[in-house]
């Protein structure tokens, strides 16, 4: 949002290099970099974008190597910074990381507007580089959801591990429980559920669409708006209904991030049942598996 826009718009001047002496390790590295770079990399790129240069006295260590490839990718027209492409890719990386924290998919137009700026014709390259960095450095995959509006999400390429919960700083999201229940419910009702059915179920747990919930605040907003915007759920208006009714399904993010088995495991834990005993899952699996049995037994519904 605003903060990276501010950054690239460059209202901040390059701060004085002398103070504060960098605490700790990297001063040795800094000196080495400084020896290597004289005369090769324009420390303050022309085009009035001094502000974009990092404030670290070290300077971009990789920029010399990048300079070679940058001259090949050098822009042909328009006011451009001499900033190498690889460095420019840092901005979409930061932008996507920040946006992903809220789990709201990022539109391609947003990335273009806030980050890419003059590099519009190199958008595909920039995004490709950004995706590489996200994967290599953070273990996140950049995934494009529906093709029409091109929203991007970051998917964790690392397997989540239960013990992570002990060392996390943010307790995941407190709304996870509600989401998982909704997902489990949808699955057990045959992958689609009416909104009225959702509330019938949740009421039994003391969760109401109209009442403020202690942990989840506004459950109706969460289910009908937030989870849908985050693409965990998909909602469709049921045609020809009065009053208006909605149907919910698993959203594209859920399909990517989780499996029916995982959701069922969670729901079973809540109800203290063995997931293997759950008919719905075994049916689904039978349908998905190529039928090896020659007995020709039809899958039970």
């Amino acid at each position, binding site marked *: *949002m*605003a*903060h990276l826009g*501010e*950054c690239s718009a460059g*209202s*901040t*001047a390059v*701060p*004085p290099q002398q103070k*504060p*002496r960098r*605490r*700790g*390790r*990297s001063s040795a590295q800094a000196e080495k970099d400084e020896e290597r770079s004289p005369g090769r990399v324009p420390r303050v790129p022309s085009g009035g974008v001094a502000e*974009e240069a*990092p*404030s*670290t006295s070290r300077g*971009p*260590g*990789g*920029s010399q*190597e*990048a300079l*070679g*490839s940058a001259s090949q990718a050098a822009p042909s027209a328009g006011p451009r910074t001499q900033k190498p492409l*690889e*460095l420019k890719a*840092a*901005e979409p*990386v*930061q932008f996507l990381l*920040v946006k992903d924290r809220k789990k709201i998919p990022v539109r391609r137009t947003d990335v273009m507007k806030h980050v890419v700026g003059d590099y519009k014709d190199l958008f595909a390259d920039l995004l490709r580089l950004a995706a*590489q960095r*996200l*994967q*290599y*450095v*953070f*273990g*996140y*995959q*950049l*995934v*494009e*959801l*529906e*093709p029409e509006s091109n929203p991007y999400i970051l998917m964790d390429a*690392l397997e989540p*591990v239960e*013990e*992570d919960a002990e*060392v*996390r*700083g943010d307790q995941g999201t407190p709304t996870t429980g509600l989401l998982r229940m909704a997902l489990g419910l949808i699955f057990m009702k045959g992958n689609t559920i009416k909104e009225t059915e959702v509330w019938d179920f949740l009421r039994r747990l003391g969760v109401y669409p109209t009442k403020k919930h202690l942990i989840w605040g506004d459950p109706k907003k969460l289910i009908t708006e937030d989870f849908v915007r985050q693409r965990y759920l998909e909602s469709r208006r049921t045609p020809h209904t009065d009053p208006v009714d909605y149907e919910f399904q698993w959203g*594209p993010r859920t*399909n*990517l991030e989780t499996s029916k088995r995982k959701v069922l495991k969670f729901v079973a834990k809540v109800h203290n049942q063995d997931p293997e005993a759950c008919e719905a899952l075994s049916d689904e699996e039978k349908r998905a598996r190529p039928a090896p049995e020659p007995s020709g037994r039809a899958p039970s519904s």
Partner: protein
Amino acid sequence: MPNSLICCTPFLQKFPSYMQSSARRMGIMTDVHRRFLQLLMTHGVLEERDVKRLQKHCYEVHDRNATVEKLEDFINNINSVLESLYIEIKKGVTEDDGRPFYALVNLATTSVSKMATDFAENELDLFRKALELIIDSETGFASSTNILNLVDQLKGKKMRKKEAEQVLQKFVQNKWLIEKEGEFTLHGRAILEMEQYIWETYPDATKMCNICHRLLIQGQSCETCGIRMHLPCVAKYFQSNPEPHCPHCNDYWPHEIPEVFDPEKEREAGISKLNKKSLRSRQH
């Protein structure tokens, strides 16, 4: 499955050429480092003791048999990779008791805009007002009352004092401010992130430590010549010195000399102290 997927190229193949040629200088990321980075990002700032725990956890998940690398080297390795993204894991020390911590810092921004994604315009302005009061103050603390009195001057949507009190608490929870007895000062993480910005924006009011030459918010000062020192810097400088004197004017140093932070002592102290600490870190 969704209709189209842009999956980035599997990282084992197709490094851009610059990454290959500088591989010797730049570090190598493995899943241990990635998980570490992901989890560190959930904290934003973390005490060194917990960072070590986190590192150990990541080794246990991905590489049980490997020797856990020395934390400093481990972090240097990650930083060399983060460099081209203008991010850094910076090490700092709390101003009050010299406790080391690590924070993920965005190098490309030097203003308060790092907070811009989490706070509204009027909230950011409240922070700026608090920041100014803190920097101008003699003690490094600004009283809640004085901050709240500036509520009418805030940019953006009008904010009531009651709301402002909650916003201040949000700053404390997110580790931008510390509260002590109704007064607010900067969290070590804010100092680390905004040091440059503060120097530039308030060049006259900003104080500096005579020992480490870094930004000083809380500290001790010489009553004769006025030089200031961080508490942990005082602790180190006067360690086992029975008669401390001002390094600048040589006058007797009148303040109590704090203890140098010792992580070993903390661990040995046992459960009861751990409980006290966790209370303190909640304040932090």
